[in-house]
């Protein structure tokens, strides 16, 4: 499938089969290089950072050491509160700690937001292709819609760790002041933050795409590389603007995920027929970070 074609330095390290296999249920101990593990972890920390958002922290050094920015985990609780695990971008991974940025939305995320320190979780992963770190531009412009903010903490951190770190700008759109994730300001890796809210209660009135338009109009996107994450409609609107400018970009997308690693075929994202022989990409393998030109944004099945 599409995943096979897009080989590049940013893909997970070439997988090797572990002879003798993994100890079942204890994958965390001895994962293959680039391998997937099932890590049992107690919730180590929990901070409310907005009306319906939380940072959840887990101390899982082995897993944390293997996260590439933009990768995600399938997260479950014990005993399971939902049948399927839920996909979450890793918001940060440093000093042996993994941080998720959670927005409570439906049954599963609501239940997650209620868990207390010490409660048992299952972290399965890491999964997917993250953002490219091998093609840095002088300026990295991140466009985050709502909880789409999550992967940009770790991306900013890792970009800043490069030999020649780019400038990192964040355009962050939210519903309202209350929804704004307080954590944004706490992270030192952003050189500039432009906040937009739909009701104008914080930052400028508007959305993240308006922010993109403003930067474009000011000519501040020349030589920049774009990284975007947010609801489908936002990305679709962004793509219309971006295409005109031709700014190189990567978009982190969402689709329902049954497994996270290619076996359920649940996470189909319509492929751009101009670039693909197949009708769909499996987002969990081909993405979640996609080259936007590979996606058929206008497909009627998309939300």
């Amino acid at each position: 499938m599409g995943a096979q074609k897009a080989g590049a330095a940013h893909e997970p390290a070439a997988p090797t089969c572990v002879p003798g296999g993994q100890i079942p249920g204890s994958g965390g101990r001895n994962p293959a290089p680039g391998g997937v593990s099932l890590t049992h972890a107690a919730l180590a920390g929990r901070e409310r950072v907005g009306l319906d958002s939380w940072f959840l922290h887990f101390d899982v050094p082995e897993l944390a050491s293997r996260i590439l920015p933009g990768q995600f985990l399938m997260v479950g609780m014990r005993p399971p509160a939902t049948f399927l695990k839920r996909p979450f971008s890793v918001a940060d991974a440093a000093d042996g700690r993994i941080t998720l940025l959670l927005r409570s939305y439906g049954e599963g995320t609501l239940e997650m937001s209620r868990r207390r320190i010490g409660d048992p979780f299952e972290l399965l992963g890491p999964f997917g292709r993250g953002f490219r770190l091998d093609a840095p531009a002088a300026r990295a412009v991140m466009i985050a819609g709502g909880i789409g903010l999550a992967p940009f903490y770790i991306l900013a951190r890792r970009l800043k760790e490069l030999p020649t770190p780019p400038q990192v700008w964040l355009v962050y759109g939210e519903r309202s002041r209350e929804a704004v994730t307080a954590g944004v300001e706490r992270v030192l890796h952003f050189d500039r933050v432009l906040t937009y809210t739909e009701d104008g209660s914080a930052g400028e009135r508007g959305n993240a795409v308006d922010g993109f338009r403003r930067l474009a109009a000011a000519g501040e996107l020349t030589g920049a590389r774009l990284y975007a994450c947010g609801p489908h409609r936002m990305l679709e609107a962004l793509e219309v603007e971006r295409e005109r400018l031709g700014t190189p970009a990567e978009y982190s997308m969402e689709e329902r995920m049954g497994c996270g690693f290619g076996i359920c075929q649940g996470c189909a994202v319509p492929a751009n027929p101009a670039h693909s022989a197949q009708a769909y990409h499996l987002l969990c393998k081909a993405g979640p970070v996609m080259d936007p030109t590979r996606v058929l944004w206008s497909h009627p099945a998309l939300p």
Partner: protein
Amino acid sequence: MSGGSAANLAVELAGVRFQNPVWVASGTFGYGDDFQTIFDVSRLGAVVTKTLFLGPRDGNPPPRIAEVGGGMLNSIGLANIGWEAFRERKAPWLRQHLPPAQLVVNVAGNTAEEYREVALRVDAARAEVGAAALELNISCPNVNEGGTNIGCDLRLTREVLREVRAVTSLPLLVKLSPNNADLVPFARLAEEEGADGVSLINTLYGMTVDLHSRRPFLGHGSGGLSGPSLLPVGVFWTYKVHQAVRIPIVGIGGIARAEDALQYLMAGARAVQVGTASFLNPFASLEVIDGIARFLDRHRMDLEELIGVAHERRPQNVPAAAAAV
């Protein structure tokens, strides 16, 4: 053998010796290679491939999966890379990582002729790909007959079986749909037509309506129900079919733990398949293997003693038409 256990888990089925009775189900393990970074697939009893058609299929539009109480619905729509792409791009990896006795190739078609054609090709390439057996997915709409589900129609099922049986000497398993009043006639038919075993069950019809959009949630409308909900249904039909036919049964549906698999074995299955559980926990199949070994150790039993034991000393008869309620 498994872990430090003394139990011999090897089982003979349809003329093939499998090193253990725990397989992974079609459509829930890809083509095996997605597990290369997860565990050594050669530990499994067998890997059953995603259903292969002659040519590739894109499958249904998203959303393709939905969570429901007690399991999930899928409307993948039999998306698959097609037999030839499988042979070229996936089989070599499997050949390298899986002993030949451990690959079961699952196939289907839109017509009886397509079934025959793909079966013929698998047969011709059996040594090359290392196929131990063929599993027929008959839960497919027949395009020549107004889309009737073949697996819900005895005549169409017979037609498919005859076409396939005529062109292959590979051990043949027929995978039955639970969307029927009775699975026994289908199992009997499979036996009559020379199948070497039956796998049961495939998914149940289901639908979920999205209250926001007020329309069926899945892009395709309806889907197939899998997961824990299927456990009692699959065990029931395993028990019933075991009473009716002599060919072996491969039990499927809702297996996530060794305890679930043991129910199927006791009800008469000679092997089982772990399906949806691999999504939640990719190591589920290995845990099932180890758990069965531990159970046999603890009770000092042979696998053969376990298989079908529930029939031996049942307190009451399960009546012919097991009408519940």
